[in-house]
């Protein structure tokens, strides 16, 4: 390659020679893409590990409707997710499988939509519109975090009856015991949704910084709103991860 490069020095062949943007994207945007790629590997490793561990445990055999949490450590089968995540705030005791996580999914998708709208407004350098949509995105992120906090507290507190396993009554789950089944199920729940929640939290902080800068006119002075785009990439990625977590942790 090096020998041919010295022979023909047309601009097309020197596109990778430096001083140009061969991928038509700024340094910051490229690095955001490659950071997200590495982050995708991390999350995929978690979810694949979850799959492997799930296959290592006995599955529940029997009727879906008759499902109850494992009552003996001799036969500690993996729980059916929709029997674990079936509560909704202010609807105590009513069986609403997956409704709350479904709502959380919608909230995160919506906040992703407002983020694209902010990016779109940024292309037109419409400061007022970017402000509006960034604010909605921040609110969406905070609402999602609030939902996750509720979800966690419910998961930790457990159901009213708990479960009697090997003669001991257990309520909820933590890192030492788990009402819903194998200990690793609780561990993965805390780890995967926790790591995703940490990403949402960082995203909200970044979005607030961007919102502040938009309001202060920083990007107006700079002449472009590319920062909104870069943080937008991160925010969409957080939504993308949730789409996979929703499927592999809650649906399957």
């Amino acid at each position, binding site marked *: 390659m090096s020998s041919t490069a010295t022979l023909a020095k047309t601009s097309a062949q020197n596109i990778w020679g430096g001083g140009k943007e061969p*991928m038509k994207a700024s340094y910051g945007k490229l690095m955001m*893409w490659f950071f997200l790629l590495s982050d995708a590997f991390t999350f995929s490793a978690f979810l694949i590990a979850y799959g492997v561990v799930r296959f290592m445990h006995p599955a529940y055999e029997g009727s879906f409707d008759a499902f109850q949490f494992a009552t003996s450590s001799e036969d500690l089968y993996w729980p059916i997710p929709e029997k674990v995540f079936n509560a909704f705030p202010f609807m105590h005791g009513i069986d609403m*499988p997956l409704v709350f996580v479904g709502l959380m999914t919608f909230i995160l*998708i919506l906040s992703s939509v407002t983020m694209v709208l902010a990016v779109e407004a940024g292309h037109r350098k419409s400061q007022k519109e970017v402000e509006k949509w960034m604010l909605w995105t921040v609110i969406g992120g905070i609402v999602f975090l609030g939902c996750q906090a509720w979800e966690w507290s419910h998961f930790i507190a457990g159901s009213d009856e708990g479960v009697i396993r090997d003669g001991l009554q257990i309520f909820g789950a933590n890192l030492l015991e788990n009402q819903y089944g194998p200990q690793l199920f609780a561990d993965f729940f805390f780890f995967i949704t926790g790591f995703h929640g940490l990403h949402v939290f960082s995203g909200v902080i970044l979005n607030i910084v961007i919102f502040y800068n938009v309001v202060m006119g920083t990007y107006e002075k700079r002449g472009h709103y590319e920062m909104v785009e870069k943080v937008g990439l991160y925010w969409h990625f957080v939504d*993308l991860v949730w789409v996979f977590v929703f*499927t592999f942790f809650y649906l399957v």
Partner: protein
Amino acid sequence: MAQHDASLSQEEIKKANVKKIWTVAGILALVTTIEFILAFAWPDGMDRTMLNILFILLTLVKAFYIVAEFMHLKHEVKSLMWAVILPMAFLGWLLVALWKEGQEIVDAILAIFA
């Protein structure tokens, strides 16, 4: 955003872009709703392998729309697109490797502890 005719006004470009964004949002919402309905409508006792395959396919549909449209990757230069997509092949390998080795791990654990 997407390429536009130079003759279009600011307002027209905005309208076209915003319409596109809400269309994608509608697709994402629709797919999530379908997943939801499937989760409940699936008859008790029926083999769930098919259902899980459907879930995964629908997830990939959603992932495509988020990455291609919201993250704009579909409209980037081809080299950037492939630089992001191709390394994902490693995940395919990780999946296959752990899938195949998973049973061996279980057997090893059982042989040692049981």
